[in-house]
C-alpha cells in the first residue's frame, strides 16, 4: 500500500513537491476569493493564473541549487 502511494506521489508530484504544494496553496487561496469574498470571475481567474506562474517561478529558482551540476 505504501509502495502504491509512493508510486503515485512520484508519478504526479515528481521531484519538486514545492511546486505542487504552491499550486494547491494558490488554488486554496483563490477558492477563498470565490467562496468568502465573492470576487468577480475576472479577479479569480487573473489571481489564480498570476499565483500559479509565480509559485512555479519561485520553485524553479529555489530548487536550482539542488540540480546545479558540480
Amino acid at each position, binding site marked *: 500500500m505504501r509502495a502504491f502511494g509512493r508510486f503515485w506521489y512520484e*508519478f*504526479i*508530484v*515528481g*521531484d*519538486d513537491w514545492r*511546486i*505542487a504544494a504552491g*499550486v*494547491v496553496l494558490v*488554488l486554496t487561496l*483563490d*477558492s477563498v476569493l*470565490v*467562496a468568502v469574498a*465573492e470576487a468577480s*470571475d*475576472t479577479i*479569480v*481567474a*487573473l489571481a*489564480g*493564473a498570476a499565483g*500559479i*506562474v509565480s509559485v*512555479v*517561478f519561485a*520553485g*524553479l*529558482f529555489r530548487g*536550482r541549487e539542488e*540540480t*546545479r*551540476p558540480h
Partner: protein
Amino acid sequence: MSSSQIGLVVSVFLASAVEFVEAFTIVLAMGITRGWRAALAGTVLAVVALAAITALAGYTLVDWLPETLLQLIVGTLLLVFGLQWLRKAILRSAGLVPLHDEEETLGEETAAAARAGRETRFGLDWFGFVVSFKGVFLEGLEIVFIVITFGLNADDIPLAAAGALCGGAVVLTAAVALRRPLAHVPENTMKFAVGLLLSTFGTFWAVEGLGVFADGSRSIEWPGGDFALVALLGTWCLFSWLAVRTLRGAGELAT
C-alpha cells in the same frame, strides 16, 4: 474543431510520441538481447492493460463526479503533472539536467539484459518479458494520464485516445523502418511543448473548477472565454523563456 480539442490532439500526440520513443528503446534492447517473442509479448500485454485502464478510469470518473468538481480535480492534477514536464524541460534547456540520450539508454539496457540470468515461464524469457512490460506500461501510464485528464476536461476521450495512437503509430513506423533507437528525435523540444500545453490547459481548467465553491456551483468564466487560452499559453512561453535564460546565466556564473 475547438481550441480545447486542438490542444488535446497536439498534446497527446506529442506526449505519446516522446513516451513511445523511450519505450521503444527498452523493447529494442530486450528484443536484441533476450529475444523478440518475450519482448513483444510484454509490449502487447502492457498496451492491453493501458487501454483497459483508460476505458475504465475515464468513463468511471465521468459518471462519479459533477462537471465543476471534475474540472477542479482533474485540472489541478493535469496542471501539477504538466508542470513536472515543463520544469524538467526548462532545467534541461538551461543545461542543469542532462538531455535524454537514447543510444546511452540502449547501451545500459542491453548490458543489464546480457548480465541477467535466464529463466523461462509460460514459454517466455521472463526477464525480457517483464522488462518490456514494465517499460511500456510505465512510459504508457503517462500517456494514459494525459489522455484521461485532458480527454475528460475537453469532453472527448476518444479523440485523446486517437491522438495517442497516432503518436505511437508514427514512432513505431519510424522505428521499424530504421531498426535502431530514435536518438535524433528532438525529445526535449517535444517535452517542452507538452509541458507548455498541459500547464496552459491545467491552469485554465483548475481555475474554472474553482466555481464549485461559488453559489450554485458554476464554472468560473475566464475574461475573453476560450481566447484566454492563447494569453495563458503566451504567458507560460514567456515565463519559460525567462526561466531558461536566467537559470542558464546563473549556471554559467557558478561554473
